[in-house]
Structures are given as structure tokens and as C-alpha cells.
């Protein structure tokens, strides 16, 4: 290991090392300068992905989705980052120039930019929570809101005794999701008790009432991704405190609530979502996919709060493999 190098003089060895340093640096620059051509397979479509040009950490959400789209083996993928100031017409010109016939529009920026595309370009939307359903029946929208059916399935697997789920929601934000939840609840033999609230004050009243009457043995509380009814600064601390005191299980559609004390949440498996979007885009391109409307998130990972589980009497020590993320961190 040391032979030849040791035999050389210290000065010469240093010279060699500096050369190596330069060589690695040069290699780095050359590597960096040589943009690798994207795989081009004429058997599949070219998929354009329009996504918000935002900073970290949220940028990772979109880069992971794109990673998944790129996994769609037969497609060539071209990314179009768009900022607030993008001109949809310029984008349309570029997409026409590259002869792209199907586009995945991610996030609000992506959706807005996609609106300016030529009429013959197919569109699939994702990276958003919700789109008012009346307006979007003509395009498939893959929401980042976890499917209530998956939430209820996970709830039942953790707490088989739960029979009722309470949810306070703003119909303007979560109406579409609650419709789905009602159907899903039936399938899991759960009675879904819904409380409509269009402002924080009304939501607070609903929470107080339901927390006072809920039976921790058979009831659970669901926190949807609803900025009105799950206000982070006033509602959430009160709900988490009271439910802890009463040992009422709380689950959420937002992973950050698990960090703060909700029992579990489902959150996007962005790479897997990207793969699905890639398949859908191909289906649109070849005419085999024709569904419209909003679809809840089915590509999910599971986060759990171990200390809340312990507080509720759940022993997760033998089930740690069942969860992708476990709070609290050590």
C-alpha cells in the first residue's frame, strides 16, 4: 500500500498529489461540462414536465416526482421549470418546437403555464392539493391529498376498535375529499361524522364540542389538509393538547402534524407518484387513458409518532418496519 509512494521524496509526492488534485478537479469540470444527452426512444412519447421553479426544500418534491417520471422506460422526458414571471406563450412555442404532445403539469405554476399550450397537447395535472372539481372535469388531476380509504385502512390496522371518525372541514377546500371519505368510511365500517366550518371560529366551536363528547375507545379525529379548520397556530395546539389529555387518537393528512403529536399520517411517495404520472401521460399519448377529474393520492408512505402511540397504549416495537418515518427523532 505504501511502497512506491513512500519511496518517492516528500516534495515529489506532494507534486504528485497536487497533480491528482488538479486531475480530479479537471475531470470534475469536464464531466460537468459534458451535458449527457437524454435517452431518446422513438417507441415512446416525449413527455414534457412543467414544474414550479422554487427553492429547496420544496424543490425536492418536484425533482423526486420527475425522477419517477423518468423511470417510465419508454418515454423521453423534458423538464420545463417555470417561475412566477413565465410567459405561457413562450412555453407553448418551446413545447411546439420540441414536438411534445403530452405534458405533466406540476404545481400551481405548472398548471397555469400549461393553460397556454396548443390544443393538441394532452395534459395531466399533479403536485397540487385540490382543484375545484366543477372546473376540472376535463383533465385528470392527481392530488397530493392522501386517499381517505388508505387513511382509514391504516387507522383500522392500528386501532381496530375505532368505529367513528370525526372531521371538521371547510367545504370550499375539502368538499371533494369528504365526498370520497364518506364512501371509503362505509367500506371500512366507520361512521364518518362531518362538521362543516367556513372560518376558524366555527371550527374551534366544532372541535370543542366533539372533543368533549368523543369516546376515546371508539372514536378518532381526522385532520385534513385544510388551512381553515386546521389552523396551525390556534386550532392545532388546542386539538393536540386536548386529544392527548383525553387519549383520543388523532390522524392527519399532513406529515408535519405527526411530528407535532398526531398518531400517523400518509404522505406522498413522490418517486412512485412520478412513475404513475409517467404511465398516465403515456396512456394519454396512445389513447388508452381517458379518465378525468380529481384523484386522491394513492402512492403513499406512512409516518407515525411513537410517543403518541405509546400514550395511546399501542406497542409499535415489533412493527417499526411498517413505517417509513418515525417521530420523534432521537
Amino acid at each position, binding site marked *: 500500500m505504501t511502497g512506491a509512494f513512500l519511496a518517492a521524496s516528500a516534495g515529489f509526492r506532494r507534486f504528485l498529489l497536487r497533480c491528482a488534485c488538479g486531475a480530479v478537479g479537471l475531470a470534475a469540470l469536464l464531466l460537468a461540462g459534458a451535458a449527457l444527452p437524454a435517452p431518446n426512444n422513438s417507441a415512446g412519447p416525449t413527455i414534457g414536465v412543467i414544474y414550479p421553479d422554487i427553492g429547496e426544500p420544496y424543490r425536492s418534491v418536484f425533482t423526486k416526482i420527475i425522477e419517477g417520471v423518468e423511470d417510465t422506460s419508454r418515454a423521453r422526458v423534458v423538464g420545463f421549470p417555470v417561475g412566477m414571471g413565465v410567459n405561457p406563450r413562450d412555453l407553448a412555442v418551446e413545447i411546439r418546437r420540441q414536438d411534445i404532445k403530452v405534458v405533466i403539469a406540476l404545481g400551481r405554476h405548472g398548471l397555469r403555464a400549461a393553460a397556454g399550450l396548443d390544443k393538441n397537447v394532452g395534459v395531466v395535472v399533479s403536485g397540487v392539493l385540490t382543484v375545484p372539481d366543477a372546473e376540472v372535469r376535463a383533465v385528470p388531476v392527481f392530488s397530493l391529498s392522501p386517499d381517505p380509504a388508505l387513511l382509514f385502512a391504516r387507522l383500522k390496522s392500528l386501532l381496530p376498535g375505532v368505529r367513528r371518525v370525526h372531521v371538521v372541514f371547510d367545504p370550499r377546500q375539502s368538499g371533494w375529499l369528504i365526498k370520497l371519505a364518506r364512501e371509503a368510511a362505509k367500506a371500512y365500517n366507520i361512521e364518518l361524522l362531518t362538521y362543516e366550518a367556513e372560518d376558524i371560529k366555527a371550527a374551534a366551536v366544532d372541535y370543542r364540542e366533539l372533543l368533549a363528547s368523543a369516546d376515546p375507545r371508539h372514536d378518532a379525529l381526522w385532520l385534513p389538509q385544510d388551512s381553515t379548520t386546521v389552523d396551525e397556530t390556534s386550532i392545532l395546539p388546542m386539538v393536540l393538547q386536548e386529544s392527548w389529555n383525553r387519549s383520543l387518537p388523532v390522524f392527519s393528512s399532513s406529515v*408535519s402534524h405527526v411530528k407535532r403529536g398526531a398518531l400517523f399520517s400518509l404522505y406522498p411517495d413522490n418517486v412512485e407518484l412520478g412513475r404513475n404520472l409517467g404511465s398516465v401521460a403515456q396512456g394519454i399519448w396512445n389513447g388508452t387513458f381517458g379518465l378525468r377529474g380529481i384523484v386522491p393520492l394513492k402512492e403513499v408512505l406512512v409516518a407515525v409518532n411513537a410517543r403518541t402511540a405509546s400514550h395511546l397504549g399501542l406497542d409499535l416495537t415489533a412493527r417499526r418496519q411498517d413505517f417509513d418515518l418515525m417521530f420523534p427523532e432521537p
Partner: protein
Amino acid sequence: MALIFPKTLYTLLALGWVASAVAQGTEEEDLALIYGDNSTVSIATGASQPLRRAPAVASVITAEDIAAIGATSLGEVLETVPGVHVSRASIRYAPLFVIRGIGGGSQTNPQVLLLQNGIPMTAMYNGDRGSAWIGVPVENIARVEVIRGPGSALYGADAYAGVINVITKTAADTPGTEAGVRAGSFDMRDAWVQHGGKWGAADVAAYLSVGSTDGIKETIGTKTIPTPGPLNTGYDAVDGSLNLSLDKWRFRANYKLRDNLQTGAGVSSALDPDSLGRVEELAGDLSWTDPAFAKDWAVGVTAAYLYYGFTYPTNLMLLPPSVKPPDGLIGGPNQWERQLRLSSNATYTGFAGHSLRLGLGHDDLDLYKAKTYKNYIFVGGVPVVTGPVLDYSDTDPHIRPHKRMVDYLYAQDEWRFARDWTLTAGLRRDNYSDFGGTTNPRLALVWEAAYDLTAKLLYGRAFRAPSFNELYGNNPVANGNPSLRPETINTAEAALSWQARKDTQINLSLFSYEARNMIRLAGISWANATEQHGSGMELEAVWDASRTLRLTGNYAYQKSIDEATSQDAGYAPHHHVYLRADWRFSPDWFAHGQFNWVADRARAPGDVRSPVPDYRTVDLTVRTAARKNDQWDIAFSVRNLFDAQVLEPSLFPVQIPGDLPQAGRSAWVQLSHRL
């Protein structure tokens, strides 16, 4: 082809929903509803999460943190951790990790256990991580976990003041290929390439870094040579790693070379610009883990190998001819080690409310070769020049080859004995072939007091094994003592973790310790000479002031008393304040500032010099956000912006009266690119 026409989208725009959607909030507000704060999105979109092993007072520094603080070496990373201060030895200017007042006052740093991916990196000669870890680059670090307090009940020897676990990147941590270059003050030049991807069915991560620096050249005077001269702190470095994983198997190899390693303020406190050392370390491990080995059983087995060679291709000029005519005092102590560590563990969760972890292992730690070149012998404790430099390896070596075998066994039970209460009890027995056995317990009581508040009470006993040099070294002014016993420490801790608000996390820890049988030079030999006790606290807070601004801060206090004199044990700061701001001032740009205040460092008992001067430093880093593929990232950092004078204490008895000067203002710029 049944295409869906965006005509509907135009209609949709006309209806104004998009406008209203944008008006309702930004893109990030949508994502914040899913992920919440920045740290959660980083975890939830990342590939790995910290491991839960045992309750402790711990900090985790992620790759994102490391980029934010503009650190280019492990020492700069650790200075940000509450309760940790990074001082310097005068020899080679090696970093000393001082945790809760313990770890300074020496040329070595054996009271802190450094793990790489969970495996000890301890070189037996000095009992610390050795000089291969000087200037360790950070690009390949996925995260650093720091446990303050004792850890011997799980980790064995040297988990005494604390445990530092450096976890290198896997394929998932570094997808694609990234290359970068950096240049800066002190003629610092670094270049690196790393890659993560697939190799057949296996995940592969590879990393190579080369670099060199001339080091700081502050002027220093010593008693041995009263004429001040520049420090010698340069070195060349090569670091590489390979990480392969396939199903339940994982193979990792890490290589470190520090070449042309200069001697700092000199091995004998005589500035020595011409002597150059060379350290080579190769660490490899093969592990197999099955988290579902059988019902309720998780099992893991690891075999780890370490090669460590420390040589002086250019012999040391211990004393120059002006002090020791005619040719000066010249010496070249070289030694080589190889280590094999076999370990296995099993976790059983079949008893309701219990998680039982069992482990056993065997270490074969072999300093298998030593070579001593010199031009002198000691006569009556005084070095006498004998003529030309000769090989004294057989007749009067600095150390002879020695081997240490360790067998150990441990058990830990995490018992949830009541709602919101968990008791973790652990015990480890180590049998050493040279100094005998030691048993170390650990107890942790954890109370989930409220949904936002956790309280912990911890107790642990730990030990630090005497190094080979302390046991067997042959040096008439610092003789080895084969009858040395391990240093021990008993530590009690209390900790509170409070999620004060959705955007504010506060942690408080209190500690008290008693250290026994501490190994110091007593006359001309090593001995279990001193005892000390200490206490202190650490307070840390994280505040996400807005979606683009995070403020972090910590304050640490400690006081350690030497029991023989009832005076302060010295060297470590009583007060340490660290503040940091991370600001994303545009979607693609970050600015980071950090303030570090090291205060109130007493002298060791008997040292009548005035206290070590306090210092305050400010570092600024500006960088682009880690961009997507095919884009350049740039980072620029100014360290010690106001050019504060930074001094680390020199040892008592005093050879370097003016302490050890550290870097003034410096800067670097970095370019990196991901493919």
C-alpha cells in the same frame, strides 16, 4: 389518439379559478399543508432518518446543516453542537473535541469515541481517532450524530465524554454524479467526485476527494526555541469511500491518507518546518442485517477491518542543532496497526411492552509493527546524541508490538412499564486481555409528560481504555505503565424537550459527572493520577421564524473541578454561545451567518498565566440552493469575518507561553455540478 385538449384549461382560466388559486396562496403554502416546516419536508423527501438506539442527549447534524454553516472539515461541524468545543493540540494542530469540559489538556483526545458508520475508528497507539482524521472533508457525510455523555453500555471503550458517529452517504443520499472544486485561503485546494446509483442489482455510492493546504502560518514562540516562527500546519489529503448494498448485505470501505503532514508547533515544542508525517487508514466492513429474521426477531452481524499506519518518511527534528549540537535531536517513531472487529446483535420484541437488544463481539486490536529511528539515547533521563540516525527498533524502540483482545457482551431492555413512561436499562461487560474486565450500566427513564413535552432522567457509567503508549510506551520522560487501570466516569443527566410552538423547539439538559482514575503524567510515567467532577447545562432553541428564515442557537455552561487541588480543571470554556441564521433570500440563494463565542477558560491547576482570552467569531456563507441536475452550484464563505484573535490553550507545564493561535480571517469559494 384521445388527447385531452387544454381548451378546457383556457375555459378554466377564464373562469378565474387559476387566478383565485394563485391568490389563495403560493405554491409553497400548498406544500406546507402537506409537509409543514422545512425540516419535515427534508426528512420526508429524503432517503434516511436518524436511528433510534437508546435514550440519550443527542444532536444530529445533517448534510444540509453542514452546507449551511460552510464547514469544510468535521471540526467545524462539531463546534456548532451544544456542549462541544473544538480545541487544538500543539502537535500537528490536531483537533481536540472537548465535550462538557472533558477532552482538552492533552495532545491526544481519547475520551471521545469516534465511530464511522457505527464502527470505532480508534488507533490503539494514542487511544484516539489518530491523525488520519485531521481535516476530514465533509462532502461525503450524510449526517453526524453526537451523543453527549456516557455510552459505554452500548459502545464500549472510550464512549466517555461523548460519542460521535459519522455516517457516510449511501446511493440514496447522493443520486447521480456530483463533482466539485474549492479553493481558498492558506492555499487550500480541494476537488471531489461522488456518485450514487445502481451496479447491477446493488446500490453503489462512491466518493473520491483530493486536497491540500499549506495551513495557517500564524507566528508562535516556544520555550524550547524562544525565537518566534511560523506554525507548520499543512498537509495533503486523499479520501475515498465505496458503499455497496444488496438486499440484506452491505459492504463499505473508506480510505484516508494524510501526507506531508506537518507538525504544528512541533512534537517537542520546537518548530520543525521540514519534518513530514504520513498517515494512512483503510477501514472496511461487511454486514448482514435482517430486520425480520423471525417473528419478533431482528438480527445483524458485522465484520470490520481497520488498517492504520503512521510513519515519518522525513524524521522529526525534535530539537534543532542550535539547541542540541551538533546535528540536533532526530527521531522517527513509526507504527502500524490492524484491527478486526466482529460483532452481532439481535433485537427481540416478543414480550409485550419490551424491546430487548442483545449483542456480543470480539475485537482483535494489533499494533503489529513499530520502527524507531533516532540519533540519541537517554542516559539518566537526559537525551544524549549518539551520532547518525540509526534503527533502534530492536534495542530501544518507542514501543514494541502489542496486541489487545476484547470480548464483550451487552443487553439492553426498553420497557414501557406504564402509559407515557419508559425505562431503558442496559449493561455491558468488556474483558480486555491486557488490563482486565469492566462492567458499565446505563439507565434511562423517559416520561412523555405532555403532547409537546418529554422529560428524561439518565444515568450511565463509562470507561476509557488506556492507550498502548500509556501502557507500554518507552520514553524516559513519559514512560508507559502496564499497571494502568481504565479511566471511569459516572454521569447523571436530566433533559427536557419542549415543542414550545409549531415553529419553536427548545431543549434543555443538565448534567453532573465524577471522573475517576484519569490518566496523566505523574513525574516521568503515566499513572491513574487525577480525579475530577463537574456539572453544567446545555440550552438550545430552534425557531423557524418564517418559511425562509430559521434561527438556531445554543448556550452551554460547564464547570469542572480537579479534586486534588479543588481548582478548576482548566482548558475548557465555562460558557459557550452559538447562534446561527439561515436565510433563503431568493428561491435559489441562501445566506447563512454564524456567531461563536467561547468564554471563560481557566488555566489548569498550577498554571499561573492569566486566563485564556475569550473570543467571538462570525462566519458568513452564501450559496445557491442545491440545484437540480445539469446546473452549477456555487458557494462562498468568509470565516472569522472580523479577524478576531482566536487562541486555544497550550498545555501546562508551559512550553508555549502565548497559547496556540488559530486562523484569522479567511475565505473560500466552491463550485459543484451534478449530472
